[in-house]
C-alpha cells in the first residue's frame, strides 16, 4: 500500500511538471521543431544536465538504493539501425500529434479524450513491432 502510494506520488509530480511546463502541449512541440523557442530545449537540456550530475554522483559515491543494493542502470543493447530508424519513426509521430508516451497518458488523465485514439494507435504500433520484430534489422 505504502509502496503503491509512493509510486503514485512520483507519477503525480511527473504529471504536474509535464503539464505546468507545457511539455505535454502539442503547441510547445510544434514550436520546438520550428526552432521558435528555447523553452522545450531548456527543459530537456536541464533534465539531462541534472541527470548526468545525479548519476555521476550516485556512481562515484556508490550510493545504494532503498533496498541496500547498488544502483545499476541497464545498458542499452548495441546496434545502430534500430536506434536511427526507430528514432526517426518515433520523431515523425511525436511531431505529428505533439505527444510522446508520457503526455499521451497525462493528457488523457486531464480529460483530452481524443488522445484515446493516439493511445490505441500506440498500443497497435507496439503490438505490430512485437509481431514483426524478428524480421526487422536491429
Amino acid at each position: 500500500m505504502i509502496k503503491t502510494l509512493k509510486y503514485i506520488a512520483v507519477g503525480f509530480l511527473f504529471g504536474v511538471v509535464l503539464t505546468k511546463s507545457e511539455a505535454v502541449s502539442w503547441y510547445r512541440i510544434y514550436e520546438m521543431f520550428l526552432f521558435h523557442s528555447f523553452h522545450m530545449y531548456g527543459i530537456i537540456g536541464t533534465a539531462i544536465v541534472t541527470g548526468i550530475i545525479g548519476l555521476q554522483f550516485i556512481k562515484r559515491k556508490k550510493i545504494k538504493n532503498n533496498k541496500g543494493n547498488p544502483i545499476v542502470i541497464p545498458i542499452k543493447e548495441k546496434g545502430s539501425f534500430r536506434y536511427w530508424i526507430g528514432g526517426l519513426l518515433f520523431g515523425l509521430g511525436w511531431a505529428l500529434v505533439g505527444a510522446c508516451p508520457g503526455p499521451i497518458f497525462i493528457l488523457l488523465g486531464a480529460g483530452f479524450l481524443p488522445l484515446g485514439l493516439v493511445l490505441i494507435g500506440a498500443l497497435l504500433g507496439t503490438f505490430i513491432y512485437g509481431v514483426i520484430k524478428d524480421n526487422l534489422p536491429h
Partner: protein
Amino acid sequence: MDSLFYTWHWSISGFLIAAVMLVLNYYGKVFGVSSNLRTLCTVMGAHKHSDFFKFDWKAQRWNLVVLFGAMLGGWFAVHFLSDPSNVQLHPATLYQLQQLGIDVPHGNLEPTKLFGNAVLSSPKKIIFLLVGGLLIGFGSRYAGGCTSGHAIAGISNLQRQSLKAVIGFFVGGLIMAHFIFPLIFS
C-alpha cells in the same frame, strides 16, 4: 504562490523531471514510459501472438502505477493550476498556426481543431490521431525507448545508443513539422 499557476520555468521543470528519474533509480527502478505500452499489450493478451510479450508483467506493475499517478497529476494541474496566460507561444509560431488554420492557444494546452471532441466525428482527424499513435508506439519499441528512456535517462547515463535514438527523434520531428505537417493541414 501565483507562480504555480503560470507556465513553469524550463529550468525548474527540467530539474524536477531529472528528480523523478533519480527517485525511481533510488527505488531500484528505471525511468521509461513507453515500456508501459508493451506491458499493456501483454495485459490485453498479446503474449498469445508474439514471444516479445511473454514476460512477467507484474514486475512492471510499479510503472503502471507511476503512469496512473501521472494521469492524476495532469488532471490536477489542468483543473486547479491553470491560468489564461498559459502557453504563450512565440509570435512566429502563432503566425504559422494561422497560416495552417489551427486555433491559437488562449491558455489551452491543445488546439481544438486537432484535439477537440469534435474530431471524433471526422474520419480524417481520426486517421491522423491513430497514425500518430502508431508511429509513436512502433518507433519507441523499435528504438527501445522514448523521450523519457532515451533523451533523459539514456543520455544522462552517457549512452551512445540513446544519442543515436534522440538524433533520430529530432530528424523525424523536423521532417514532420517542416515538410509533412504543412502538406496535411494546408
